């Protein structure tokens, strides 16, 4: 059993609110994608979950326990947060030996994880000479050292080449299929759409959506793209009528859950000139962008 629960979590740095009343859960045996634009508060949330940042309000628990209260946390939760949490002059193997020593783990775990992430040959090299992809794999090796049941990965696909991304996808999939819990963050939905079971989407430190990936895809819905010189006026008129609309260009907007008939009426109401109206069907990526963007604009 390993369920991650975030409840009413908030963090303020001075006047800046990084995370605001966030609640969501990540289930065991599933890969949960934690999505949002850069600066949405993903890293801060993960760091609060791991006891590295103190929440202003709320709680973040793993199986009901705060990370800091876990007995030997390194054996139950593995985390990869930065791509450069290494002393550049230290050999990769020595980095892992230090972690294994501090966590009181058997020395053979070092060789086991080096093998698992395919870094056996580079183990004796100093981290300074590592590519970003190799650093990511060394970070993952560090996370796996304690043979954890929970994996928390912050932007794990950053810097990986396509082969690396595929390898990571399979790795994470297998980990969850064996009953593990995975929470991984990304600012690009496409990067994780093939990997995750559930998604949690945040923007400006607030929850925008939590659902299974399948349900999110089902939200795919009709909308209309409108081209008009009075784009701002039309946008305001649509919002006033309760139609979700978003500016997409200097002379274009997109209205969701709408029909050309409704839009035509709204445009006539303010005397707007319409150059073009195109009914469209929005895909997963557009839904994601729309969810995170409207939240950002309504701050």
């Amino acid at each position: 059993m390993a369920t991650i629960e975030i409840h009413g979590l908030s963090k303020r740095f001075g006047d800046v609110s990084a995370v605001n009343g966030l609640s969501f859960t990540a289930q065991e045996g599933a890969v949960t994608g934690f999505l949002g634009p850069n600066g949405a508060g993903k890293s801060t949330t993960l760091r609060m979950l791991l006891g590295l940042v103190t929440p202003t309000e709320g709680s973040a628990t793993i199986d009901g326990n705060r990370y800091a209260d876990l007995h030997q946390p390194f054996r139950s939760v593995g985390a990869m947060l930065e791509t450069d949490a290494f002393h550049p002059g230290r050999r990769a193997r020595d980095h892992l030996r230090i972690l294994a020593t501090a966590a009181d783990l058997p020395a053979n775990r070092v060789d086991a994880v080096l093998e698992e992430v395919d870094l056996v040959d580079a183990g004796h090299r100093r981290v300074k000479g590592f590519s970003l992809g190799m650093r990511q794999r060394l970070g993952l090796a560090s996370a796996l050292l304690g043979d954890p049941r929970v994996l928390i990965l912050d932007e794990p696909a950053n810097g990986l080449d396509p082969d690396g991304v595929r390898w990571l996808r399979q790795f994470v999939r297998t980990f969850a299929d064996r009953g593990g819990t995975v929470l991984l963050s990304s600012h690009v939905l496409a990067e994780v759409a093939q990997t995750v079971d559930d998604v949690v989407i945040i923007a400006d430190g607030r929850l925008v959506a939590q659902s299974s990936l399948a349900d999110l895809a089902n939200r795919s819905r009709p909308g209309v793209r409108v081209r008009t010189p009075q784009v701002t006026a039309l946008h305001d008129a649509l919002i006033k009528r309760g139609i979700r609309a978003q500016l997409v260009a200097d002379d274009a907007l997109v209205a969701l859950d709408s029909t050309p008939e409704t839009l035509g009426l709204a445009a006539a109401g303010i005397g707007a000139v319409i150059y073009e109206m195109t009914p469209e069907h929005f895909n997963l990526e557009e839904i994601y962008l729309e969810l995170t963007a409207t939240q950002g604009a309504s701050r």
Partner: protein
Amino acid sequence: MRHLINAELLKLRTTRAFWAYVASIVVFVPISIVLSITVGNDQNPLTTSEGIRGVFSAASSGGLMAVLLGITMSAGEFRNNTATPTFLITPDRRRVMAAKVLAGAILGVVLAVVSAMLTVAVATPWLHARGIDVDLLSADVISPIAGALLSVALSVVFGIGIGGLIHNQTIAITVIVVWTSIIEALLTGFVPEVGRWLPTGAASALGGTWTIEGGLLPFWAAALVLTGYCASAAAAGTHLITRKDMT
């Protein structure tokens, strides 16, 4: 706690920077001996007790480097982001700092022992060649060597505390170098009654360095004062580190 101390010592041994620090601490020993025997000090010639103590004070000559080494043990973890895995393994940061302090003290004693052995190996035959035979069990030798064990070990701990207070390693090192070599040096030179109560003044008293007439504290008082500074720095550094948000 034992595995945390082992991990701290392993962190040190696996970087080249550490060995450079060790080398620089050891190199200070012969330099200090050369200066005290050849250049000397008119007030305390080698025939006097103070003169001999001055020669054997070489055992603690790496004290400033030991402080800087201590800074790299704490602030260095923020410089390289290794504080993140360190705190993930041990969420109770007071235990992390306690392990650093204990590992630093062990390291300081080892460095002082190496420095002391080198001092004896270089100074004794040289003094003999000058017709001065030193009794290695006399207070003039034992006192500076005992002082070196204490002051070098405390210097590493002091550095760990400073690195816990100033998390930017470069700034921490700059502050300590400016403080000891400019501010403390000026205070000791112009206001010795203040200077002798400062960390470097206390460390000098322990190590047996000569200074201006009537300048330094007695050995036991210096030991208490230096221990007080180190304990305060380590406690304040630990307090600040436990409250730090690792963003």
